[in-house]
């Protein structure tokens, strides 16, 4: 279906206008100008901010620079979460551009994973893809692929090459003709208010009677507070890639069309704006 392929493109090419500002306590030799950048929703902060790093390092002394990290309104941003997820979870109902603060000192060891090189990002990305396939296909599809296919998934993401990525990823989105979907759906549900970083459980896309489970079915099963209105009022929004999909949407369809490149559906439950 042409429409469905358009969804894949819209997801891939989603961007968030962002303004990076250097933390005021960082020691600079000259004043640091903010840096503006359109961030890809589907990528990772440390993968797409080389220019940001270079820009601020120009006004700093070498000895003042250690591992870069990002923060939004006091919250360290987890680089291993896709950018779109971070934005939806923390800033979706605020004015654009997204204002992110850049740090080069006092790395928050208790909050953030280290990211010393691109290899770390690749390893994390591939681990997510493998876990997703363990859920969808008992790892059969990912294991049948050659190393060069795995590499192509990563290179596609790194170089923002939609066709290159999907040439391989489409195989991860297939299922045996006798089934009507994946074995289990790879998903994670995030709420900024909980200590638990996310909810992840085994969930089948097809009910025993053969009906397609919906997004609403998933939420009812693993996170009922997200859709049960308090006093008749819906206090929360369910957001994926910056939109609120209808709860009647089949979860199998969402998994095939609105997963991130890591093959997971990253779903944010956020407070509904009160205006």
């Amino acid at each position, binding site marked *: 279906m042409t429409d469905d392929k358009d969804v894949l493109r819209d997801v891939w090419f989603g961007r968030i206008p962002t303004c990076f500002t250097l933390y005021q306590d960082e020691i600079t030799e000259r004043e640091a100008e903010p840096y503006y950048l359109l961030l890809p929703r589907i990528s990772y902060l440390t993968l797409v901010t080389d220019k940001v790093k270079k820009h601020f390092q120009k006004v700093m002394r070498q000895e003042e620079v250690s591992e870069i990290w990002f923060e939004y309104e006091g919250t360290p941003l*987890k680089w*291993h979460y896709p950018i779109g997820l971070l934005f939806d979870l923390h800033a979706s109902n605020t004015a654009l551009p997204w204002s992110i603060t850049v740090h080069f000192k006092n790395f928050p*060891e*208790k*909050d*953030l*994973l*280290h990211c010393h090189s691109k290899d770390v990002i690749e*390893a*994390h990305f591939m*681990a997510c893809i*493998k*876990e997703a396939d*363990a*859920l969808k296909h*008992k*790892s*059969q599809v*990912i*294991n049948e692929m050659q190393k060069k296919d795995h590499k192509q998934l990563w290179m596609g993401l790194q170089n923002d090459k939609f066709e290159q990525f999907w040439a391989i990823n489409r195989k991860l989105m297939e299922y045996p003709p006798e089934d009507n979907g994946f074995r289990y759906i*790879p998903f994670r549900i995030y709420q900024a208010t*909980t*200590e*638990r*970083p*996310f*909810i*992840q*459980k*085994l969930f089948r896309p097809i009910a025993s009677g053969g009906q397609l489970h919906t997004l609403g079915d998933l939420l009812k099963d693993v996170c009922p507070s997200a859709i049960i209105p308090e006093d008749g009022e819906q206090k929360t929004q369910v957001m994926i890639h910056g939109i609120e999909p209808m709860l009647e949407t089949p979860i199998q369809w969402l998994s095939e069309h609105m997963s991130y490149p890591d093959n997971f559906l990253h779903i944010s439950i956020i407070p509904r704006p009160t205006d």
Partner: protein
Amino acid sequence: CSMAGEEDFFLEEKRFKQYCEDFVKHSQQIGDGWEWRTSKDLGDGYLSKTHFQVRNRHIPPDLEEKNNDNTEPTLFAHVEEPLDDSQAAGAGSTEEVVRYEYHVLYSSSYQVPVLYFRACFLDGRPLTLDEIWGRVHASYQARLQEGPWDTITQQEHPILGQPFFVLHPCRTSEFISAVLGGSQKHRRHTNYIILWLSTVGPVVGLNLPLSYAKLAPEQGTN
């Protein structure tokens, strides 16, 4: 990573919890320090153990240690008696205490247990992965470097949301099957957690006293 094959032995979550319960009971009997922690919101949980390791580093007076790439065999000791000044006797001998925290969680994606751990010095500074590797006994490093199940990466703890080191769960079911072998019936009577932890634990400095092997099969189950 593979999850395929009927021969592979997978652990259902209910069974994981039961084995952990039996494990904690035995730990309490021998004072091994393991406890089960339940999360308040969803009722899932994990095994947890914290212990302190003291390392006596004997540095010959004419050799200055420049970095952490030392190959000097070191002595590991569990702190059983209180530390006293006599342990720091002599010039060039330092004592280093590291706090290790181990958690055993269940991975529903791979249907196996997963070992999470972190370590820090007494001043709170966390150890880097290199520093942790440096403290694993040399013989384990050699033997397990080839093993596919020894990959250690830093990951987010799925319940606490904090950075931990993780022993990759990918090939767990494969090697557990290889060790367990035999019939389904035999497998069901072995405490998977004890078997698994006694194999992977030593890689990261975690040892199980031999008395765990005496744990009667299916204690408390059925």
